[in-house]
Every structure is written in C-alpha cells, then in structure tokens.
C-alpha cells in the first residue's frame, strides 16, 4: 500500500523477544520480531497454534512485558510504562476483542458496551447514548437489554466489538474473534469488524489460525516458532462473500428465532 507506506507507522516493533521460563526450560515464544503496521490497516497475524500469535498481540496491547526489544505504539514506548500507565494507555488508545467474548454476564448488552466509558468517567446519560449508537452500528438495536446468556455467540461477539470500539480507539486488537463461531457467523463477524474499522479508520490487528481469513486483510504476517516468516501487503484484498447490510440483519433475525 503506497498510501500507507508514505505515512508514519502506528505500530513499530523492534527485535521483540519474549522468553518464558518453564522450570529450567527457556521457551522463546517470540524471537526478534521486527514489524511495522500503518494507520487504518487491517493486519492479520496467522500461524499454527503455539507459534506466538497471542503473545505478539498481547504485547502490542500492553498486556504483557517483552523480555527484550521495543514496542512503539501511537508515539508511546510501551515497554517503559508502568502497569497503571498501561491501563490508562489501553483505555485511551486500544480496543480489545476476545475469542471467548468475555462479556460481563450480569450486565445487559447496553451496560457491557457502556462499561469502558464508565471506566473513563463518562456520565451515565452520555455513555448510555453512545453505547446505544454503537450497538445500533453493530446491528443489535433490538437486543440492547439482553443479557449475554440470552444471546447467540454471534450476537455476543457483536456486543464485544461494540464494547471495544465505543471509546473510539486508534487500534483494535482481536484474538481469534471468530474462533468460537460457526462458519457463516464467522464471516459475518469478520465483515462487520472489518467494515466498521474501515469506516472509522481504525487500525485492526487480528490473530487467526484460519488461512481463509488472511485473504481479506491488507497485510498478512505469518509466524512460525516466534519468527516472522512472511510479511506481505495485499494490494487487493478479497471481498468477503455475502451482502453487507442484508447479512447483518439476517444474522440478528436468525438468531432471534433460536
């Protein structure tokens, strides 16, 4: 992407290394990773299970400290920050979507989405109205007051995406967001997450072990045993099959009937 290359990278990793010590064994989960990701990109990190994808993502999200190397995100050096600073950094810059959704079980969809705004100190009226807009944007207008247990997996992940984006982060991290979903729902969620990030010019970094997903990304980073073995820019990412608007509404309707 020429356009992207001309700009400053939003994420710059230099010689990033993570060593886990298990007993006397030393395991290099990441071994000298150099990587640049540009604003607005949809980057896909793929690789076998155990190749270090999650470790890489978690370190970029400031959830884990590197053993060596540097992480520069949105102009900040993450490896020098304290835990409290990292929490603050996440709140202001980063959204996170989990494989197992990790919604707050006791709260409604609306409250779940409003939660990060509450952590930010936004008043109840404002955060509720912003959460409503966000839920409408992910196609859950009719499910605002449902609890997670009253929703299907696809709907729960939509709530998860809405919750991750409600604070308008610069970067959205997603660790196998479709890992717990069936084939069709996976595609719908992928489309939703990609389109919504594209619309907002949010950088999206997604981990997956599904090679199919990679063809829809702007950049593909392949890991093997903690090494980057491929870093390619997709000039013309494939279209995700299925109509955008219709599919979203179908999902909601279908799952309503379950």
């Amino acid at each position, binding site marked *: 992407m020429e356009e992207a290359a001309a700009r400053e990278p939003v994420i710059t990793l230099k010689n990033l290394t993570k060593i886990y010590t298990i007993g006397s064994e030393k395991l290099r989960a990441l071994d000298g990773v150099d990587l640049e990701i540009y604003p607005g990109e949809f980057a896909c990190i793929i690789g076998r299970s155990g190749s270090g994808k999650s470790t890489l993502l978690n370190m970029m999200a400031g959830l884990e400290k590197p053993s060596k190397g540097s992480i520069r995100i949105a102009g900040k050096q993450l490896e020098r920050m304290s835990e409290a600073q990292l929490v603050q950094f996440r709140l202001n810059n980063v959204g996170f979507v989990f494989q197992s959704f*990790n919604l*707050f079980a006791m709260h409604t969809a609306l409250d779940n989405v409003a939660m990060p705004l509450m952590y930010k100190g936004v008043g109840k009226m404002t955060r509720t109205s912003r959460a409503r807009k966000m839920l409408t944007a992910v196609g859950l207008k009719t499910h605002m007051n449902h609890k997670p247990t009253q929703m299907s997996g696809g709907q729960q992940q939509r709530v998860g995406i809405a919750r991750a984006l409600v604070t308008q982060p610069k970067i959205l991290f997603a660790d196998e967001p479709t890992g717990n979903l069936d084939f069709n729902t996976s595609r719908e969620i992928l489309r939703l997450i990609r389109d919504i990030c594209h619309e907002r010019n949010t950088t999206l970094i997604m981990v997956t072990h599904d090679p199919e997903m990679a063809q829809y990304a702007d950049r593909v980073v392949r890991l093997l045993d903690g090494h980057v073995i491929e870093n390619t820019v997709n000039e013309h990412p494939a279209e995700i099959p299925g109509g955008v608007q219709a599919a979203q509404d179908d999902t909601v309707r279908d799952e309503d009937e379950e």
Partner: protein
Amino acid sequence: MKWIDILSQSLQNLLRRKLRSLLTMLGVVIGTAAIVVTMSLGAGAEKAQMEALESTTNLKLVQVYPFYGYDTSATGQRRVTKITDSVIRDIRAMDGVSAVTPMVNVWFGGSFALSTGKYENSYAQLLAVYPEDFAKIKKLKSGRYFSGSTDRMEFIMSEIAMLDFRDPKKEYEWVDYYSILDAGGELPLPDINWLGANYKLILRWEDYSQAEPPNYEPEITEKEFKARMVGVMPADLNDWQFSYYTVCNLNWLKKIYKENKSWFKEMGFEMESYDNVYVLADTVEDVEEIIDQLNDYGLQYSSPLEMVAIMKEQIATVQSFLGFIGAISMLVAALSIANTMMMSIYERTREIGVMKVLGCRLSNIRMMFLMEAAYIGVFGGGLGLIASYSLSYALNNVQWIQEIVASFMSGSAIFETGGSSTSVISPQLALGTWAGVVAVSVLSGLYPAYRAMRLSSLAAIRNAD
C-alpha cells in the same frame, strides 16, 4: 471512574451473591450486636448507679477541710491549716463556686434543749451555716429560709429531728422512723404548731463526771434564748448532713458567741476557725475545676465525684472484659469478610482481567472491592444496630428475659440496677460502633482488594482458552 459508578458497581457485585453476602453480613450483625449490647449493659449499670448516687448525694457538693497531716514544705505545696472567714471569701471567689458555708457543729460541754409548751427536745444538735448559702444547698418542704436577722434565733429542722420533741412526763416511746420512711409512710409527729410556736433554746451545763460534790461548776450554768422555727426540711434518710440537726444561722451564732465569749469558752466551745466547709458547684462539671483550685490553694477536700470515678472504673473493668468478647466476635466477622472477598475475587478473576484489559484503573478496581467490603460493614453494622436496639428493648422490658439476666448478674454488685433500665444504648455508642465496624470491614477488604488489583489480566483472560 465516577464515585457514584464505583459505589453502584460494588453494590451490584455484592447483591449478585445474595446468600453469601447475607451470611457474611450475619457475622457482622452478630459482632455488632455483641459489642453494642455488652457495652449497653455497662452503660445501663453506670446510669443506674449514677441515679442511685444522685438520689442520695448532691454531686455538686465538695467538702473542704483544713490541711492537716504530712509536712509539705519540701514539695512546696501550699498548706492552709486554719479555715477562717477570709479563706471562705477566697473560696467564694473561685471559678464555678455557687455557694460556700462553714458547717459549724456546735460542740458544747453541756446540752442544748429546745422546748415549746409541754414538749422538750433534749437531744438537739446545733449546726450553724450561712443563710444565703444554705438556701442554695438545701431544699425545704415547707416554711421559709432564714430571714437574715440576728435578733432572734431562727432554726430549720427536718421531720426526723422534729420527732425528738417529746412530753417528758410521758413514757419514752421509740419511733422506728427508718422503717416508716423506707416504706414511704408519714412520721407520727407530736401535735405542735411547728412554725407558729414560740421556742426556747436552753444551753445548760452538765457535769459528766457526776462527782459528788461536783469538781467544778461554772458561775452561770444555764443560758436561754428565744427561738422560732422558720422552715421544715423533708425527712431524708440519706441526708446525714442536715437531717439530724437543728440548723441555725451562723451570723446569729457569731453574735451570741461574741456577746458571751468567756462563758462559751468556759463551756468548752471555741469558734476561731472552721473544721468543715461545704462548697456547692454551679454544675457537676465545675466540680473538677473547683477541686483543682482548692488543691492549689492548699486545702483538703472530698467529693462524691471521687466515688463516681471509682464506680466508673469498676464498670469499665467489667465492660472491657465484655467488650473483649464482643471484639472477638467482630474479629471472626472480619475474617469472614476477608474470606468472602477472597472467594469473590477468585471467582471473578476473569472478569477482573477483562476490566483491566478494557482500561479500568487499578485504583478503581481496588476501590470497588474496598467499597464492597464497606457495604458489608455498613449494612451488617446497621442491621446489627437494629438487632441491638431490639435486644436492648427486650432486656429492659420483657419480664422473663430480665429474670434470666438478673440470675446471671446476681453475683455482680455492679449490675444491681434496682429496677431501672439494664441496657442503655447511647447515640455515641451506636454510631461509634457502627463507624468502627465499617472501618474493620474496610480493613478486612484491604488485602483482598490489593490482590484483585494485582491480578494479572493476561492469566485471567487465558484461563478459559
């Protein structure tokens, strides 16, 4: 995060596990009630004893004596060994003093007799006081206080002393006034127009040696003064200061003493200084200050407040033992709070991890857990107070419970309450305990809250992958 959000999140988390929260709170309720009720028993005993003391003694009175005993020249302590009228004036000028009077017990080498008509009181004991001060110290049942005039003897008596007027020609009949008064009855007073009659006060020489012929006989053996009874004091068995005396005006006594000084001296009565002075404080609270001033002045004193202090100390000893038991039950409650919080954190490990990933401040997480612990204290303590007030009511009003308590307390004189309320919960006790319970709850939440804050967000998210 806004405070209101922290508070409401904590409350929601608490209400999520109703049964467990309730059980934990129950511990706090029991702890609170144990402390409040045991302390209230002590307070009840104190109140009852104070009431008993107040009904028998005037706590505002301080008795003052000249300084006698050990030599204090080494310590530099002032000593006033003779209380004269100028000393009385100094005491009167002290802060918090309402009234001062010497208590002149007229000792005499003979006898006093008061007589009116056929009745004679041959056992009169004369007590002379300053009239205005006496009026402040002692209440009358009828009649009036001294007029201030020294022309004629005026006296005031209690009904107990009035019983001593008898007809000498009739057979002596002893009246058990103690039993009568104790039963609340009226004394069988002789039929005298008490405040209207004319009395005579006779000062008579008596030879106690009964040698024959007498070893010594003064020239004048008898003096007689006209007298009027102006007031009647109520018959009060506890008032050993005035009830058994014929109280008269000290200024009158001074006058006749001056006029008959050599004769009085011959009779063995001298009035150069006072042995015993009464000081009345403006309020009970002033007593301590007065005592300090008397001490600095170089006088000795005694006050019923000293008894109060001893009594309070005794009650405090018992109370601290009972309070200790209450504190132990509170400690158990605190451990149970900490345990509940740890369980709650363990269960919510994942949720806390997600909160951290979503950007919830560490201090906010800690505060949410502290508040959850505080809620247990606030609600548990509040319910504990309701329980305490109910128990206290039962202790004070339900017959069979009172009987059980009485049988337990029978060995302990301190808790003899003589019918008034056994358990007294003051607002200070209630609110103080409540605040303490909340503080203890927050303290027990401190470590769990710290643990919650320190949880690794990553481990939390991973554990279900």
